[in-house]
C-alpha cells in the first residue's frame, strides 16, 4: 500500500479525524520527521511574513527563528510532556508524545502559513512604520498578528484535545493533559521567544539575529518592567518595547 502524499497528510491533520490521526501515530517514527519538516517550512513562511515589515534580512532571520522556537518547545518539553501523559494514564510512549506535539505545532504553523498571503498583503500596504504618525497603524497590525496567532493556537490545541480524548476515552483526563502540556509549553515558549527576539524588529533598532542582551533577564521580569513602566511615567532605558 502506497503511503499518502504530503498534501493528503497535511489535509488529514487539518480535518482532524481522530481515528485517522491515531493510525498516523501508530504508523511509526517516519511521521515525526514529516511533521517537523512541515513545521520548518510552514513556520519559515510565516516567520518571513513577520520580519519582512522591517527588512528582508529581518525576514530571513525570523524565518529561521520562528520554527526554531517551536522545535525548541517540542524537544525541551518532551520529557515533561511524556511524564505528564504517563502520570495521567494516557497510552502514549515517549516517541508518540513527541509526535503528538509535533502534529499540534504543525497544524499551528499550517494555519499561519495559509494566512501568510493576507499578512504579506497588509505588510506591503503598511505606511512607513518609523514615522511617529503611524504608531496606531503599527499597533493595529501587531494586534492583528497576535489575534490570528491566538486563533491558530486555539485551533491546533482543540485538535490535540480531540485526539487525546480519543486516545484515553476520558474527556476529563484529556482536559488535564491539555492544561498541563499547554502550561509547560507556554512557560518554555515565552522564555525562548524572549531570548530569540527580535521577530518583528523595532524600526528604531538595528536588524540583528540576537540582541546583545538576549540572555539578560527573563520574559516575566520584562513583563514586570513593562507594567512598572505603565505605572511610572519615567521609564528606565532598558525597558524598551520589543516584539
Amino acid at each position, binding site marked *: 500500500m502506497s503511503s499518502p502524499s504530503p498534501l493528503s497528510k497535511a*489535509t488529514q491533520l*487539518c*480535518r*482532524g*479525524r481522530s481515528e485517522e490521526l491515531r493510525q498516523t501515530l501508530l504508523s511509526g517514527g517516519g511521521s515525526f520527521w514529516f511533521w517537523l519538516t512541515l513545521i520548518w517550512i510552514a513556520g519559515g513562511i510565516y516567520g518571513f511574513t513577520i520580519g519582512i515589515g522591517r527588512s528582508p534580512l529581518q525576514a530571513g532571520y525570523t524565518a529561521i527563528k520562528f520554527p526554531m522556537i517551536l522545535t525548541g518547545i517540542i524537544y525541551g518539553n518532551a520529557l515533561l510532556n511524556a511524564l505528564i501523559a504517563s502520570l495521567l494514564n494516557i497510552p502514549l510512549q515517549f516517541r508518540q508524545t513527541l509526535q503528538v506535539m509535533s502534529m499540534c505545532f504543525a497544524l499551528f504553523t*499550517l*494555519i499561519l*502559513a*495559509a*494566512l*501568510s*498571503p*493576507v499578512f504579506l*498583503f*497588509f505588510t*506591503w*500596504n*503598511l*505606511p*512607513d512604520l518609523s514615522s511617529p504618525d503611524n504608531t*496606531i*497603524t503599527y499597533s*493595529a*497590525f501587531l494586534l492583528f498578528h497576535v489575534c490570528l496567532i491566538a*486563533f491558530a493556537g486555539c*485551533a491546533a490545541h482543540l485538535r490535540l484535545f480531540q485526539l487525546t480524548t480519543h486516545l484515553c476515552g476520558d474527556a476529563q483526563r484529556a482536559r488535564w493533559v491539555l492544561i498541563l502540556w499547554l502550561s509547560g509549553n507556554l512557560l518554555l515558549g515565552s522564555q525562548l521567544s524572549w531570548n530569540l527576539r527580535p521577530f518583528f524588529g523595532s524600526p528604531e533598532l538595528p536588524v540583528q539575529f540576537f540582541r546583545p542582551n538576549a540572555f539578560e533577564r527573563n520574559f516575566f521580569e520584562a513583563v514586570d518592567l513593562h507594567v512598572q513602566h505603565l505605572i511610572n511615567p519615567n521609564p528606565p532605558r532598558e525597558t524598551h518595547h520589543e516584539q
Partner: protein
Amino acid sequence: MNNEVPMPKLPEPPPLPENDLPPPRLVKDDFTPLDGKPGLLEFLEALLKTPKSLFSEIQAGQARKVALSLMLLIAVFLSGYGIVTGLFSGGSQWIWAPVKIVAMVMLSGLICLPSLYIFTCLSQVEMKIWEMIAHTCAAICLVSILLVGFMPVLFIFTMSTESLKFMGFMHIIIWIIAGIAGSRFLLTSFRYLRGSPSGYSALWIFIFSLVLMQMSTTLRPILGSSDDVFTSEKKFFLSHWLQPEFSANAESGSRRNSYR
C-alpha cells in the same frame, strides 16, 4: 359484504422542536443536478432559484466548469457595476473603475484562497479545491448580482449629487448589504455540506472582508479620480477612509483629485 376492518387512525406525532430537527445534509441523491448541458444562464438561474441544484452540480464533478462560468459572470456583473461607479468621476474612470473593481475582488479571492482551503479542512468538510472555489464563486456571484440590482439607484444618485462623501458612504452601505447576503449564502452552503454551521467559515469571511477593504484602498482611486491611475502612497484602509482631507474634499463637492 366488505370484510375489511377500517384501520384505526394513528395520532399524528408531535412536531419536533426546531432545534431537534436533523440538519440538512447535501447527499448526492438529495438534489437533482441541472438537466442537459447547462451553460452560463442555467448556472445563473440555478444560483438564484435553486441553489441546491447548483450545489449538486458542483458535487457531481462539474466543480471546475461551474467555478469558471461563475467567475465569468462575476467579471461581467462587476464590470457593469464598475461602469456606473466610474460615471461619478467620468474621464478615464469609465474604464479604470470596472477594471479595478473586478481586480479587487479577484485578487482578494486569490490572496485568501490558501486560508479558505485550510479553514475548510478545519471545518471537517470533505471538499476538493475546485469544489471549494466553486462554492465561494457562487457566493461572490450572488454579491455581484445584488450590486447590479443596485445599479439604477446608484445611477440616479450619481447623476444627482456632487458629494463624494455621500457617494462613498452609499457604496459602502450597498457593499455591506450585498456582502451580508453573500456571507449567508456561503455559510448555508457549508452548513449543507457539513451538517452544522462552522465558526471557521465565519472567520474566513471576516478576513476576506478585511482584505477586500484594504484592496479597495490599494487600488484607489476607484470612485474619485486623480491624474494618476494608481497612487503610490501606502495607507491602511481605516486611516484612508477616516482621513480629514477626504471629508473636507467631499464637502466641497469636488469629484477631481480625490483619492477614493
